[in-house]
């Protein structure tokens, strides 16, 4: 069975934030919450690298381990999802997650936490796929429509890959081994890399 994963090719990511925008647009993410973020290392310096980060859909998800209401489940494809009807907004998952993925919209007075929101790999949640209830709680269910997550669909440079871990690793391996194997007269390195560092 597949294990769904994201992989961001740092040599291709141009920090356009198209993935962030696509995610927010497709899922109508609550104000103040970003399911996906682009992190840039050495920003503004020659040779800077950017990667797009969202939920890693961990095999042994720490968020699920600490949840007091056991609202997390993992699909047969390894996508970590949760039931918002059970979430009490305690924030344990936020502290457990090493990537800071779970976020809480401030819905009530005094900054009290709403129900946790995170990347669903565009696979919705425990509601009828494509239903209004599912969209309002979890956002789009593109997987049920046979599509990639919105961020990976939208990535202009195909830096962000999504899918079965083996497939994604194979694509990335092929890329990284053939990247410098051809003349770079007008290629990627000339446009973005060569002569900068």
């Amino acid at each position, binding site marked *: 069975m597949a294990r769904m994963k994201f992989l961001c090719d740092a040599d291709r990511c141009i920090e356009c934030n198209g993935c962030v925008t696509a995610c927010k647009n497709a899922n109508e993410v609550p104000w103040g919450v970003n399911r996906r973020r682009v992190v840039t290392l050495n920003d503004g310096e020659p040779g800077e690298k950017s990667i797009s980060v969202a939920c890693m859909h961990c095999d042994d998800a720490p968020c699920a381990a600490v949840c007091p209401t056991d*609202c997390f*489940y993992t699909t*047969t494809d390894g996508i970590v999802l949760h*039931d918002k*009807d059970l979430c009490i907004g305690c924030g344990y998952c936020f502290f457990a997650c090493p990537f800071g993925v779970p976020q809480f919209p401030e819905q009530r007075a005094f900054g009290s936490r709403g129900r946790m929101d995170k990347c669903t790999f565009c*696979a*919705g949640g*425990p509601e009828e796929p494509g239903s209004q209830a599912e969209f309002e709680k979890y956002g789009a269910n593109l997987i049920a429509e*046979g599509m990639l997550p919105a961020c*990976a669909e939208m990535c202009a440079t195909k830096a962000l890959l999504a899918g079965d871990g083996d497939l994604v690793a194979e694509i990335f391996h092929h890329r990284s081994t053939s990247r410098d194997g051809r003349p770079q007269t007008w290629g990627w390195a000339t446009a973005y890399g060569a002569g900068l560092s």
Partner: protein
Amino acid sequence: MSRQSMLTIFGALALVVGLTGCYESSDVTFFEAGKYQGGDDPLLQKLEDPEFRAGLDRRFDGQRDR
């Protein structure tokens, strides 16, 4: 007891007490997720459909460089 031996004993005691704070337990606590208490996700059944699965795999495979 001489002043030097007292200082040696006191120093040794301070060293022992100091090193006690450096102890680190090697026991690792594994936390396991409980049983999921939420509702059923109809998507899981859909993913079992071979035809749907094949279409999804084709879509994912389309990410290869042309």
